[in-house]
């Protein structure tokens, strides 16, 4: 117990470290204008590209005096790309773009870029980043939801799988399960509004605004929290029903409560959802069963030593496969999130994960003692064994609380896979331009000297794909006297592609695009790409 308590400050320190770097999960890969760019002419549009699909919450363009040039009303999201047409006039000077978006996993990301028009960039003060004021409430609600899930849904699983239909469980066990489920249901409901406030970084008083709650409830996170809350409410109500109704309600409630988890987490964006969502649900069910059983076992052992022995044996039989599923699913998710083992030590996410794994290892040791030493002793009726059992279960419960706290903070920390995308030598160069009302997205990979794949996607301002009859591309480097290489792009799904275009040297290349969008209309545009 003392060892685990000793770890608490370490965990808290790690959590606070996480708070500092709360740029969560989608990360900005690049922008047009680029951060720090000095433009000769005013920009026609703003483009932001992130590491994963995002939903815009707020995008604003401010001038050096802080006046709003664009409030971002016309911003459009296209997968990982945000596009904001800028019809405004830009006087010479420096400008600031601030943005706030959510990624697929419903985590907010904020940041800013600066650029100048017509004159060198001046120091432009920015209300950048976030206040972090909602971080602790969000973490607390997550933690309480997990505790409720473990005690409530886990207790329900214990009643169903370990106690069985033929034994009447003690009322105190029912009270524990009901209390846990009610706590979790309440915390999950509250987390919706707090999550909404966190997304918008609203002031404290705005948390009561109705719109904030309805918006947050409509998000993926809100849907997940509602499902979890509803499931736990079912579990909390189930003991009030007598007879055959009770057990199906407990089972349904526990399943629903855990099934809400994939919607709110970022594990689902780490791989294909059909893989990650079931794995996460399996992980959640096993964790809940393990932690939820602790209370039930203690109550049973205190009540009746001999019956408890039988129950412990039954628990042991279920626990072994459950632990195997738990470890396998946990390992798989960790691999998806971490990818590079080195990041276990170098990132906050990795360090919290290591701590969680250390506590899990300790818990497994305690569980092993319970199974192989204390369970046979309790069956034999040794009074001291029951006392020792309560002690080890107390330790397990403390460890479980640490694990849940670590898990709650992992959910708020960017995983290494998201950080890896920040690598500046990362995948290719992306830029966007427009021509006669069409948006032209140009992706060049790997954007290094040598053969490159060029992908062009044409869309209407509304995001509808445009399929030109012909798409002609000329790529040259006028500064180095390299005359344009002429290529016809080939259709590739809804996009067009030039494979293996050899760009022999690094530097700024000029890409000229000519698209015959209908028999009578040809559009042309040109944009610079950077090859390094």
């Amino acid at each position: 117990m003392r060892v685990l308590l000793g770890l608490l400050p370490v965990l808290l320190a790690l959590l606070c470290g996480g708070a500092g770097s709360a740029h969560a999960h989608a990360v900005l890969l690049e922008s047009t204008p680029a951060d720090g760019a000095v433009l000769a002419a005013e920009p026609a549009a703003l483009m932001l590209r992130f590491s994963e699909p995002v939903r815009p919450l707020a995008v604003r363009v401010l001038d050096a005096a802080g006046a709003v040039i664009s409030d971002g009303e016309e911003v459009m999201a296209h997968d990982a790309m945000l596009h904001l047409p800028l019809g405004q006039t830009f006087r010479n000077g420096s400008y600031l773009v601030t943005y706030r978006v959510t990624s697929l996993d419903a985590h907010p990301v904020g940041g800013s870029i600066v650029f100048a028009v017509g004159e060198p960039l001046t120091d432009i003060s920015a209300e950048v980043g976030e206040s972090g004021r909602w971080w602790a409430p969000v973490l607390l609600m997550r933690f309480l939801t997990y505790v409720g899930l473990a005690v409530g849904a886990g207790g329900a699983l214990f009643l169903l799988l370990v106690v069985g239909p033929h034994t009447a469980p003690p009322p105190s066990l029912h009270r524990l399960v009901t209390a846990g489920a009610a706590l979790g249901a309440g915390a999950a409901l509250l987390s919706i509004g707090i999550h909404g406030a966190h997304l918008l970084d609203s002031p404290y008083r705005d948390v009561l605004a109705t719109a904030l709650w309805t918006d947050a409830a409509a998000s993926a996170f809100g849907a997940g929290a509602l499902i979890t809350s509803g499931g736990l409410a079912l579990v909390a109500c189930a003991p009030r029903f007598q007879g055959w109704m009770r057990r199906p309600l407990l089972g349904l409630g526990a399943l629903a409560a855990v099934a809400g988890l994939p919607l709110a987490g970022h594990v689902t964006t780490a791989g294909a959802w059909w893989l990650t969502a079931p794995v996460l649900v399996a992980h959640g069910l096993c964790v809940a069963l393990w932690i939820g059983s602790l209370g039930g076992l203690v109550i049973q052992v205190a009540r009746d030593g001999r019956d408890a022995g039988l129950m412990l044996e039954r628990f042991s039989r279920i626990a072994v496969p459950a632990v195997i599923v738990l470890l396998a699913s946990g390992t798989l998710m960790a691999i998806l999130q971490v990818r590079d083992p080195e990041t276990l030590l170098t990132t906050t996410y990795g360090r919290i994960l290591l701590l969680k794994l250390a506590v899990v290892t300790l818990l497994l040791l305690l569980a092993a003692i319970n199974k192989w030493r204390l369970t046979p002793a309790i069956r034999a009726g040794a009074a001291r064994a029951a006392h020792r059992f309560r002690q080890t279960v107390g330790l397990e419960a403390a460890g479980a609380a640490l694990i849940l706290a670590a898990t709650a903070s992992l959910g708020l920390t960017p995983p290494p896979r998201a950080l890896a995308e920040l690598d500046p030598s990362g995948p290719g160069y992306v830029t966007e331009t427009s021509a006669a009302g069409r948006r032209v997205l140009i992706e060049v990979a790997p954007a290094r000297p040598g053969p490159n794949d060029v992908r062009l996607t044409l869309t209407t301002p509304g995001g509808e794909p445009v399929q030109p009859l012909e798409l002609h591309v000329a790529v040259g480097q006028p500064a180095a006297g390299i005359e344009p290489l002429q290529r016809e792009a080939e259709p590739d799904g809804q996009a067009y592609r030039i494979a293996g275009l050899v760009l022999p040297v690094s530097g700024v290349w000029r890409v000229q695009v000519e698209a015959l969008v209908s028999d009578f209309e040809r559009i042309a545009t040109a944009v610079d790409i950077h090859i390094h």
Partner: protein
Amino acid sequence: MLRPIIHALVLGAAASAATIAHAHITFEGDEAPAASTYKAVLRVGHGCEGSPTEVIRVQVPEGVIAVKPMPKPGWDLETVVAKYDQPYQYYESTLTEGVKEIRWSGNSLPDAWYEEFVFRGHLPDEAAGTVIYFPVVQECEDGVHRWIEIPADGKTRDDYKEPAPGVTLTPKVED
């Protein structure tokens, strides 16, 4: 002594004028009053690098209304009728749709021959100097010319390889 130089200049000017007239598809009368009915005579002076012309398609720009093509012996005539972007007042009636594309086909005009294609339409009531462009696609037995380039601000048709034929509006004639 000056004569050879003058000869050269005259010949050169004639040659370049001939090139321009020959190279592009243009309208015979390329000026007309705004808000007037215009008779467009499309002059086709060549095929596609020697290949005979088989199809001429004209796109009617938004704002040009009540368009009627003149049938041409030996050529099939088709039109595409579509909704205008907005309704237009035309004498006593309001027009909401009309001819947006004209297509002459079913014949073969050798590269060495000259031909004219005629249609009529009501020009928009816009400022004098505005150029109304009619993108044209010339399909040949072998190849295609797309006379669809519309000059950007500050440029003229001469800056382009295949400019669309256009008519420049002159001041509206008040009646």
